[in-house]
């Protein structure tokens, strides 16, 4: 017995991630972010989303990925986590795919501890591995976040 779940896919460098689509409020290009000095490195700054202040999270930093080109991410995924709005800055957003439980797997045990908190599972797709992110964990760990190293 399996139940299909919709995931919004996005990419950071060579990695593909999925996030449960119903948590996503909207996608926003050209979100202008104001830097907040002395805030955690994982927070790029704060942005104005139609009159509401929304923290913008640097997903490269949050996942401990190298962003060698140091390029500006192209798009922001606006998530509603409980009552909090956050913007995840990512390189690009792919399609929404519906996945069933039979491709679901626990994250491999050789994942570093920090990332294992964020990635609650993986889906093996024919062409790639989709890492599933838990939105609440993205926000929860921000104060204490040391630099996690995902995969090298």
């Amino acid at each position, binding site marked *: 017995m399996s139940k299909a779940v919709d995931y919004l896919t996005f990419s950071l460098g060579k990695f593909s991630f999925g996030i449960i689509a119903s948590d996503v409020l909207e996608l926003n290009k050209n979100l*202008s972010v*104001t*830097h*907040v*000095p*002395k*805030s*955690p490195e994982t*927070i790029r700054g*704060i*942005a*104005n989303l*139609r*009159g*509401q*202040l*929304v*923290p913008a999270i640097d997903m490269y930093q949050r996942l401990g990925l190298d962003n060698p080109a140091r390029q500006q991410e192209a798009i922001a995924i606006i998530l509603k986590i409980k009552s*909090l709005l*956050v913007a995840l800055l990512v390189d690009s957003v792919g399609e929404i795919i519906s996945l069933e439980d039979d491709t679901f797997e626990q994250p491999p045990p050789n994942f570093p501890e920090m990332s294992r908190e964020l990635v609650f599972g993986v889906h093996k797709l024919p062409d790639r591995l989709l890492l599933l992110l838990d939105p609440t964990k993205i*926000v929860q760990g*921000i*104060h204490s976040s040391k630099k996690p190293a995902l995969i090298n």
Partner: protein
Amino acid sequence: MDNTDDILVEFIIEAREILDQLDLDFVLLEKTPDDKKLVGNIFRAIHTLKGSSGFFAFKRLEKITHAGETLLGKIRDGSLVLDKQKTSLLLLTLDAVREIVAAIEATHSEPEGDNTQLIEDLLHLAHGVALAAREPLEASAALQLPPTQLAAAADKSVSPLPTAQAQDWGVELAQEVAQPVKVNLDLLDKLMNLVSEMVLARNRLLPFVKDFDDHHFTGAVRNIDLLTQELQERMMMTRMQPISQIWSKFPRLIRDVADECGKQVNLVQDGADTELDRTLLDAIRDPLVHIIRNCIDHGIETPDQRAHLGKPAVGQILLKASHENGMVVIQIADDGGGVDFDLVCQKAIEKKLLTAEHALSMTDMQLLEYIYLPGFSTKSVVTKLSGRGVGMDVVKTNIAKMGGSIEIDSPRGQGTHICLKIPLTLAVMPALFVRCEDERFAIPQNNIVEMVRLDLAHDSRGLEDFYGLPVFRLRDKLTPLLLLNHHLNLSQKFPGKDAVVNIALLQAAGTQFGLLVDEVLNMQEVVVKPLGPLFSGSTDFAGATILGNGSVALILDVAGMANNSGLLAKIQARPLNPVQVAAKVTEDLIPMLLFELPGLEFTAIPLECVDRLESFTAEKIQKNGKREVVQYGSGIMQLLRLNEYIDGASPTPVKSQEPLSVIAHDVNGLTMGLVVGKVHDIIQVPQIMQNTNSQQRGLQGCVILNGRVINVIDVQEILRMRRIQDSEILVYPDSEKSEVAVIDWKRVQ
């Protein structure tokens, strides 16, 4: 929140409304015990409460309300007459109900407790059985007013509140008048946000009108423009609420406190429909309650004392609210004994805040400052109402926190007059924008003392280092400096030896310090928005604001920065200006503004009397009758040529080609412009003045500083002369003239 919770929240809101209304009704009912309609209203309200508590199975609440209803029923059908005992018992019932409702609100379930005594008493009274001697009403029944006095009090009754007034015909009109709708505050805030965004979106749309000739399009845009504007105005109105919302609780409060003190007090309200932002409304409630308690407990005398003084037995408290220059002014006045200055003085000496010989030279105005000190109380015994010394200091800090001010005026024996000035809304505040590196920051205006531009090349000392703390000299006083770029880790640049730097002198957390910024931009009203939980660790920012172009600017938290940077700790460890501190202890220096008058080269005015310095060209001066006036802001400022009022100054006017230097002095909402010659500097002068033998017109006396005689003008006397001269109404608090200069320079700082 699930469904039952929703309903429960509605019940709590409703219960609170009913309780507030009942408080009012009962006090009114005591004065007009025959008002059947009022009894009916009260009965129905209690009944509603009973019904709702039955629905939620709040057994305790149900029992109490049921007993209350029984008693009220008898009063309603005329078989019993409401007297003082019954009122007090019913009010006790109300308090019990309020307690339970508060507990339900906190825990969502009915608290444990026992009210059998109360219920028994209610039922006894309802069945006409006299209460046993142990009944709990002794205390509140202590104030047994003869019925005639009660009636007299009722005649001069409280100017009824709108709500109380409305209820008379509210019953008849109930079918026609639309009931106000309860709206969740979060929803209102969201709407507010959306409307601001709408305004921005409209602003982006407007420029397109120019590029298109299509009049259908331009027409549609105009329409949107107008609608948006109206929408915004209406939306702002939803935030504003009448002050009567909190005042409606005061008649009951005053009755209770007065009862407890064995005093009789009548409340007069004026301007209950004055509106202010609802967040501020919440914030001023406690300070107001405190002040009113003080008025009754400290101010108003017992009926015996009042009779002895030839005052009417019933004391008066006046509450007045009005709008003035974008501020809300709330005045609280009583006709009691005023502040007991001798007692304040005595207590200050007891607490070693003041030496006995200093006390002799203290004016009433100076003594008033002591009542703002934490832990200061004139009551020797701690009572339920007062004596703990927590009070006026909290009031003052609370008012200051919302950007307001408090003034107390208390002529001996003539009651106290307290004036609170608070901004209309907290959401919008004026802020100064500064640039540091590539980023823009806003500094709240109430933290800003002055702006300083320092030319390091010409200032021989420039920036110095004081045990690891950068400092600069401001009028020969070492002032700590915080480099914004260093503090926020924006860059490691340090101003060069010959740079010209911009420094904002800020005050917060009881200290003053300079903030070095790259550029001072503009002043603007900003809407403060919280940064949200993810930034809870950063105490450098008080929030952020969204600018007209949609970008975000951070608002600096001045007190937080002083703390974080270690600046505060460093100053506390090593006082910067030890000499100055010593001078403050002996309190013999006061700041004055030094200026020239034709014929009198060195003249000074206490800095306290200087509200602003302005400069006008001669052509700006216009005539209003025989007075000279200039347009000033949205109003006018009367000009007063100082040299005409002071002995020794030559009466010929200052040369009219040059721009006039004017000292703006605010007197009870009016601005007087004192026209002077050249303005020199701020000087510190000894408080004890040399009084010349013969009194000179317009002068308080003179001081000697660096071998020069400096004439200190007497602003009050000059204003008095002016008033006599054109016999206009310019209310100025006359304080006693004393031999020593009466200047209260904010000694607390």
